């Protein structure tokens, strides 16, 4: 039987297919290059604009006048072309696409490697290059090689302070940074039932850190209910037994709080093994862990206390920020001493608002700890929201308590 990727792309693993894409999006970084390629093609007319989006998230608001000028040209183009445009302050592209835009069964491409995040909805979603994207602007189509699939079978439920991020770091460390190159990951098993949409988005988000082209969950009741709250009525996808090229089995109850240590995402240690490591900064946010549930969980732990180290919290989107204001989560964060950033990527890519100095150490809830990513000569440890909160209170890497 066919894997979910094969069903959505309507081909068998290894086959090359031409497909119409249902959603295509770029951000302020890759948008610049796409517009360049678009100019070289020299066309005036875009394909069905309702399927195209441009979302500003990487450097928002602009950090200097060079960036501002590039963004100005891109903004004028987006507005003039009538594609969906989401300006400074609206949030991270993947997050906005996850707030009731991408639907099960869709073919989605983003000009960003973490476009794999949206596989959480049972869509086939992957990153493409800027030249690819310019072609898609023209016709709404592109070619794919249908990937082989690695099945990741989940059982049990989380125990103690472990959360989806710890599970994600577990499978990345088991597969390795190129263990799934060109393949898709499919998350199945009873363990999936207890995972919220936010958990699934975290798991799909990190799939590219194994080299995977996509990470997918089958749409089920959790998906249907989540999308219903955004006004989208969809059907669950039927799961079928299918052929995986490799299988991994993980029992959620065995997952413990983990951190990925510099400078590789697949080099993972239990938090307790490196507890006590002094920190200069905590960063909570990104397309991995900047959702409302993340901010709320962080606030629950630091509420009524004070953080012992510089702590930057960046909501993943305007909707996340608005919810945090409405429920008082934002007040709890500010009262505890956190700094709040503009919805977007924040310091994740090391371009602005929260970059690190040489020799500084940061615990981040993001997905990449590559050398020099958040600042030249700095070290990034990747961990869960609970680990970030416990560590913020102590100013050093700290094992989260069970709550």
């Amino acid at each position, binding site marked *: 039987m066919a894997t979910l990727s094969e069903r959505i792309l309507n081909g068998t693993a*290894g086959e090359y297919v031409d497909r119409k894409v249902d959603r295509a999006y770029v951000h302020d970084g890759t948008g610049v290059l796409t517009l360049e390629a678009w100019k070289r093609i020299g066309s005036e007319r875009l394909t069905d604009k309702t399927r195209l989006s441009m979302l500003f998230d990487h450097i928002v608001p602009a950090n200097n006048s060079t960036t501002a000028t590039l963004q100005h040209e891109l903004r004028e183009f987006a507005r003039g072309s009538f594609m969906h445009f989401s300006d400074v302050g609206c949030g991270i592209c993947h997050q906005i696409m996850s707030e009731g835009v991408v639907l099960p069964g869709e073919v989605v491409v983003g000009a960003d490697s973490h476009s794999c995040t949206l596989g959480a909805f049972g869509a086939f979603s992957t990153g493409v*290059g800027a030249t690819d994207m310019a*072609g898609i602007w023209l016709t709404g189509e592109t070619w794919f090689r249908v990937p082989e699939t690695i099945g990741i079978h989940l059982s049990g439920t989380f125990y103690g302070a472990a959360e989806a991020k710890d599970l994600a770091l577990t499978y990345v460390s088991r597969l390795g940074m*190129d263990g799934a190159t060109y393949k898709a990951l499919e998350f199945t098993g009873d363990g999936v039932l207890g995972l919220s949409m936010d958990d699934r988005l975290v798991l799909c988000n990190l799939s590219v850190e194994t080299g995977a082209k996509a990470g997918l969950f089958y749409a089920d009741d959790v998906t249907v209910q989540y999308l219903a709250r955004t006004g989208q009525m969809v059907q669950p996808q039927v799961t079928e037994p299918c052929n995986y090229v490799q299988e991994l089995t993980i029992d959620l109850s065995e997952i413990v709080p983990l951190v990925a240590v510099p400078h590789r995402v697949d080099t993972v240690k239990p938090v307790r093994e490196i507890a006590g490591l002094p920190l200069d900064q905590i960063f909570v946010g990104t397309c991995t862990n900047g959702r409302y549930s993340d901010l709320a969980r962080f606030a629950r732990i630091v509420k009524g206390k004070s953080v012992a180290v510089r702590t930057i919290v960046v909501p993943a989107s305007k909707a996340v920020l608005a919810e945090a204001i409405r429920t008082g989560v934002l007040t709890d964060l500010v009262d505890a001493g956190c700094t709040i950033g503009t919805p977007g990527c924040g310091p994740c890519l090391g371009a602005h608002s929260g970059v690190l100095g040489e020799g500084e150490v940061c615990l981040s809830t993001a997905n990449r700890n590559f050398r020099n990513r958040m600042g030249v000569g700095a070290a990034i440890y990747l961990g869960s929201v609970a680990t970030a909160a416990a560590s913020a209170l102590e100013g050093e890497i700290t094992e989260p308590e069970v709550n």
Partner: protein
Amino acid sequence: MTAKGPAVCVGPDIDTDLVIAGRYLRTKDHSVWVEHVFEDLDPSLAPLLEGSVIVAGKNFGCGSSREQAAVAIREAGVVAVVAPSFARIFFRNAINVGLPLIECDLACTEGCLVTFDLSEGWVEAEGKRHSIHPLSPRMQAILSAGGLVEYWRNHR
């Protein structure tokens, strides 16, 4: 589209740094890349490439996503690259700049004739024919146009 060329054999896991070193990227002059292609792997390779088929080991084109690697190989006159597997970004880049790639585990004898047909889906070497997945119609059209931008310039 049938084509052929003598095989040039290279090993597995050839990364894009070995295809074209970082020190040659700061130019838009393609002839610089042609001159230095595969220099850090084996400086004697470059003169053999015109009209050849590169037969490589697994994971060809891994590492940095630089599009110049695919351009350098194409501009050097290579007809196609055959390997059991390619790194994902290199794969898309190659098709998009008009360099045919063939996924096949081919035993390589230096200089032996490699013939292939991408629309029919086969590759032949030393009297043995291996079937491969035929490229999609769009991919074939992009390759014959010489790349994605050229393809769309003709079809806009």
